[in-house]
C-alpha cells in the first residue's frame, strides 16, 4: 500500500460518508456541505489513484484544480439561491 493509495482509500471513505449525509440530510444547507465534502473525497481519489498506478502525474493536479474552481462556483450559486429561497419564504429544511 503506497501513500497515494491510502489517500485514495480515505477519499473513498469520505465520499461514502458524504453521500450518506447528502441523501439523508433534509436541510438544504447540510446537503450543500455534504456535497462539498464529497467533492474533496473525489479529488483525493483523483490525485491518489493515478499516482499509485503510474507515479507522479501533473494531469490529476490540473484536473483537481479545475474541479475545485467548479465546486466553489457551484457552492456560491447554491448559496445565492438558498438565500433567495429562504427570503422568498421557503423552508430550507422541508
Amino acid at each position: 500500500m503506497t501513500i497515494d493509495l491510502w489517500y485514495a482509500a480515505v477519499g473513498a471513505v469520505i465520499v461514502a460518508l458524504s453521500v450518506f449525509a447528502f441523501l439523508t440530510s433534509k436541510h438544504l444547507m447540510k446537503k450543500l456541505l455534504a456535497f462539498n465534502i464529497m467533492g474533496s473525497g473525489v479529488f483525493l481519489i483523483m490525485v491518489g489513484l493515478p499516482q499509485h498506478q503510474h507515479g507522479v502525474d501533473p494531469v490529476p493536479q490540473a484536473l483537481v484544480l479545475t474541479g475545485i474552481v467548479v465546486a466553489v462556483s457551484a457552492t456560491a450559486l447554491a448559496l445565492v439561491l438558498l438565500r433567495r429561497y429562504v427570503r422568498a419564504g421557503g423552508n430550507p429544511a422541508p
Partner: protein
Amino acid sequence: MTPILLIIPLAFAILTLLLPRHWVRAIIIPGLVLQVGAAVLLCMEIYQHGPQDYALGDWQAPLGISLIADGFSVTLLALTALIAALCAIYAQYFLTRYPREQRYFWPLFWFLLAALNGIWLAGDLFNLYVGLELLGLSAVGMVALTAEKTTLKAALDYLYAALFGSLAYLAGVALLYGAYGTLSIAQLSDMAAANPTTQVALALMTVGLLLKTAIFPLHYWLPPAHGGALAPVSALLSALVVKASFYILALLWLDVGALAVTVTAAQAMGALGAGAIFWGSWQAFQTRQIKMLVAYSTVAQLGYLMLLFPLAIGVSEAAAQLAWQGTILHLLAHAFAKAAMFLAVGTLVLALGHGRINDFGGVSQRNPVALFAFGLSAVSLMGLPPSGGFNAKWLLLQSAIASGQWHWFVVMIIGGLLTAAYVFRVFRVSFLQSAKHEIQDTHPALQLSALALALMAIALGFVSELPLSLMNLTDIAPATMGGTP
C-alpha cells in the same frame, strides 16, 4: 473553424453581461446569425473533408483541450444552434414582459450554448465534466430567473441533482484515469477492459448521468424545473440540456466502455427507459397543468432514448446500427418537437393567463397557430407519420425486430399510444366552443417561432437521410456506433 463555436457564445455571454440593456437587445440577432452560420459552415466542412481533431492553443492532450468534430457532434451542434436561435427569437418577444429576468437571461443563454457546444466537441472525459458543470450551473440559473418561491425550490433541487450527478461522474473519471492513465475517449475505448474497476467507474458515471438526464426513477427534479421555468427556458432545457448528459451516457456505454458493459446491464437500462415511458406518460395524463404535462412528456420521451442500450448492445451489427440511427433521430426529433411544444404552450399560457388544461376552451379560435404548432409537435412525439419521431420509432422498431427483442417492441408501441392519450387531452378541450376566460392576443413572432420548430420536427421525417449520413462520418466510434468509419 472548430473553436469558433466555443468562442462565439462565450464572447457574447460576456458581452451581454457587460453591455447596457439596449445594446443587449441589439446584438442578439447578430450573435445568433454568427452562431448558426458557424455551425452550418462546420457541418459543411465535416461533410466534405471528414472528421477533425483540434488541439486548443496547440496544447496537446492530456493537458491540453482537444476538440473533436465528427459527424455526430456537428449534427448536434447544428441542432443546438437552430433550436437556440428560434428560442432566442421567441425569448426576445416573450421577455418583454419580464424586464428584470431579461437582464440575466441572455448571459445565461450564451453560457448554456457554450457549455453545450463544449460537450458536443469534447474529446476527453474531463472536458465533458467541465461542460456538464457549466451547463448545469447556467441551466439552474435560468430556471431560477423568475426568483419565485416555487421556481427557486425547483432550481435548488435541480442544482443539487446536477451537482451530485457531476460528482458521481467525476468519481468515475477518477477511477478510469487511475486505471488507464488517460482521459481521451478514443484511447479509452481501445483500452478499457471488462474489469471491476472499469465497471465500477462506469456504474458511478452512469448513476450520475442518469440523475442529470432525469431518467426514471431519478426524474423527480425535472418536472418542477422544466414545468416551472419561463417558456423559452423550458424549451432549451427539455430540448437540449438533458440530451447532453444522455450523449455522454451513450458515449460511455457504446464507445468508452463498449467492452465492459454486459447485456444484462443494458437490459436493465432499457427497463428504466420503459419505466420512464410508462410513468412519465401516466403522470402527464394525470396532471392538470399544461406545462407539467409537457414536462412529464419529456420524462417519458427520454425513456425511448434509454432503449438504445438494450437494442444496441449484444446484438447483431445491423440491429445495433438501426438502434443507433433511431436513437439519433429520436434525439433530434424530440429536441425540435419538445422545444416547439414548450414554446407553443408558453404562448397559449400567455394568451389565457393560466395553464389549467381543463379551461383551455376557445383557444383554437384565438390562437390557432400556436395550437397548430402544438399539434404538429405532438404528431412527432406520438411517433405518427410523417415526422422525425415516426422515422425514429420505425428504426427502433426495426432494430427490435432484427434482434428479436419483442418486449421493447411492445413497449414502444404502447408508448406511442400513451403519448397520444395525454396529448389529445389538450386538443379535446381546445376544441370546446365556449371560452371561459378572456383570451389575449399574442405577438405573431411567438406563434411563428413555435410553428417553425414544429415544422422542423415534421420536416425531419423527410430529410432523415441527412443527419443519418452525417452520422456515418465518425472516427471515434467503433462498429457498434455508426457503421463505416
